């Protein structure tokens, strides 16, 4: 899970899930605790689904929030 996706790709990460920033990848402190958790829960879920997904080449997994 990374914010700098191009860097993560360059160093060879195979399953990539985008995060929202460098200092707070999984929860914007300008939003409420509930919203932060919702975003984090969603994106971690995408990462867990990525683990169960067969891929042939490095893949960026899409997030909804």
């Amino acid at each position, binding site marked *: *899970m*990374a*914010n*700098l996706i191009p860097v*993560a790709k360059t*160093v*060879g990460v*195979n399953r990539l899930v985008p*995060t929202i920033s*460098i*200092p*707070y*990848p*999984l*929860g914007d*402190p300008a939003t409420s*605790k509930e919203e*932060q*958790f919702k975003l*984090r*829960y969603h*994106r*971690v*879920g995408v*990462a*867990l689904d990525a*683990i*169960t*997904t*067969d*891929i*042939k*080449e*490095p893949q960026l997994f899409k997030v909804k929030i």
Partner: protein
Amino acid sequence: MKGILYLNQFFGQIGGEELADFKPEIREGLVGPAMALQQELGDEVQITHTIICGDNFIGSNTEEAVETIISMLKGKEMDVFFAGPAFRAGRYGAACGHICKAVKKEFDVPVLTSMNDENPGVEMFKKEMYIFKGGASAAAMKKDIKAMSKFALKLLKGEKLLPAAEEGYFGRGMRDQIWLDPPVTAADRVIDMLLKKINGEPFDTELPIPKSDRVAIAPSITPEDLSHMEVALITSGGIVPVGNPDRIQSASATKWGKYDISQTDDLVKGEYMTIHAGFDPAAANNDSDVIVPLDAMRRYQKEGKIGGVYKYFFSTVGTGTTQAEAARMGKEIARELKKDGIRAAILTST
């Protein structure tokens, strides 16, 4: 001709680790290894100045150190610039690389340094400058200085230069068209190679393919398996228990830590923090789950999507960390996980 040498605080005779915060200084004449360098260069090149800077100072204030040193060099006569030898000293190697790169850019003179192949500075800078293959410690000083100065003289006199491997520096990935002496056509050379290969004899390819460090794509795990499995959390975002018990460096890390979260559901403020020096730590110090998403993982555990969360999370700092160091730490962490039968991990980077 004139040359200038860069040294760290130790070889610049300022002091050891306790003086590694020493700010850049320029001295007229020869300090420490500059004398040996002068001896090797003889009358052809005069080393006029020695620059000295603490490894920690340049490590944590790279831009400031480089700017200061560049301004010190302005107006000085200089035909060649040397740094080190840095042997296996990582911070010193990186410092030599940073300075050589900046000097090359600003003054466009040849820059030369020397490092051991284990020095992370080699990977970082070998494409951009001549880094001679040096010894592991200062015991190799004389030999390493000799290699650098011999090549510098060839370079300055415009003599014919041989390929990197023959001159003794790390290959820079540059190609050059040369005439073979005696001339042997490509067709003859390739047949020679083929015959050697068939006969099981050693041969050298003329087109070395750089080793690719790609990690193969891991096969997927079925959702069913995942629901019975522990998943590990890893981060390069510097999350540690408050107090940083393993003293992981805030930049250019060479250490990682593992921290027991078997009884923890949430990385709360006051117990966990980040020591990463590459971003504003406010958000992560306030709630470290924004980097190590333990609370969300616990929710998935409760819901049965995963069997659990591995009892330790792993942490290091990604800023300034070389790929070689990162790869080593990654391998060490992977070994720990495999030992405990862990097959899946989420790594959050910052």
